[in-house]
């Protein structure tokens, strides 16, 4: 369904991502892990065609470069890290923006079906009761749920999430990933998530890409990537020793 072949991308004519290839099937959770600055967010931006790329990215055998923005948005959605809210939209207004790519270009208005989908998306992440609240008055966890509901309303075939659990406490991290998992199972859609927490990767990812200096160090099932020596090589720490030390402290 989603095929990435030998892509190169970066900024100012300098490639940060070099020769990445992978395939993704519907219903699959792929996690991208790697040290800071290895190009994880850059790769996500290329996969959403936010930045130009060389190589081939195809969804259902169509090259995404050839799609117009609205068609692309109906296929791929990127949840970026939004740091500043300039205008206080309500939760409903923000989620409804997710339907933009499904609206008619001549008369862009929300249809009754659009409204049902918006309400359904808010319900999925538990936002219905605060649908009229201003988003600048929400907590970090609630705000992440708003942007997730907006992505659900967009209803793409592939969701790209750039560190969605950042700045969230443990409960919200698990809750957010549960919402994504539930949606993915229900709709048979694929997700690609950049995560730093290897425990969350182990719990939620089906496949993992380990990036190192913009290149694919390893790619495979979560179990294969997380238990071999690749992590130690890329992160340059003895992960097994560190985790064992933490577990011993935990047990004590």
């Amino acid at each position, binding site marked *: 369904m989603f095929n990435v072949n030998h892509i190169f991308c970066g900024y100012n004519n300098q490639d940060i991502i070099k020769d990445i290839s992978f395939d993704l099937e519907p219903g699959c959770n792929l996690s991208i892990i790697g040290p800071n600055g290895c190009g994880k967010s850059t790769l996500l*931006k290329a996969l*959403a*065609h*936010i930045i130009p790329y060389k190589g081939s990215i195809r969804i259902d055998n169509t090259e995404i470069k050839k799609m*117009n*923005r*609205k068609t*692309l*948005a*109906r296929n*791929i*959605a*990127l949840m*970026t890290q*939004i740091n500043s*809210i*300039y*205008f*206080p*939209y*309500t939760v409903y*207004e923000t989620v409804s*923006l*997710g339907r*933009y*790519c499904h*609206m008619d270009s001549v008369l*862009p208005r929300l249809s009754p079906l659009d409204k049902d989908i918006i309400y359904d998306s808010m319900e999925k992440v538990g936002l219905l009761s605060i649908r009229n609240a201003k988003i600048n008055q929400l907590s970090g966890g609630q705000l992440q749920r708003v942007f997730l509901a907006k992505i659900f309303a*967009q209803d793409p075939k592939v969701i790209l999430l750039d560190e969605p659990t950042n700045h969230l406490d443990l409960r919200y991290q698990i809750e957010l990933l549960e919402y994504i998992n539930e949606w993915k199972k229900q709709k048979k859609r694929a997700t690609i998530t950049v995560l730093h927490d290897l425990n969350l990767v182990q719990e939620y990812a089906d496949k993992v890409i380990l990036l190192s200096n913009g290149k694919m160090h390893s790619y495979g099932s979560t179990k294969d990537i997380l238990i071999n020596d690749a992590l130690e090589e890329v992160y340059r720490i003895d992960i097994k020793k560190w985790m064992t030390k933490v577990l011993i402290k935990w047990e004590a």
Partner: protein
Amino acid sequence: MGSFSLRGWNYVKAASIFFVIGITGVMKYTNEMDLLSFGEDEAKSNGVETEKVKKKLLIFSSILTGSSVALSGTIGFVDLIAPHVARKFFGSKHIYVLPISAVFGGALMIFSDIIARTIVSPSELPVGAVTSLIGAPFFAYIYFKKSR
């Protein structure tokens, strides 16, 4: 400083052509403006052709600004006060903010012009002086309210 003195209905007729073209143009892109307010990457990911939309918005807003300044000269603060008040009372969606800002901005100009024409009668103040008198304390209030 800008003023409406010696401006008759002919000026209004001439400016209204540009007003209709400009306002129709920008009103076509209210959803895109909502999405762009979350950042360019976010707007692209939601399906907005950001480069095209920005160019068109620049053209239409230049038509509106250019015709207004040609009619009256530079009158400060109205462009800042009107959308701020519109957002406060009618929310942030640009489909409401733009027309309400136009109506409120126009009403504010009439109010300011009445003051400019009567306060030192029979002489007349430039209307820009009155809007500055209203605008400066308004922004000081917003600034200090936000810093608190």
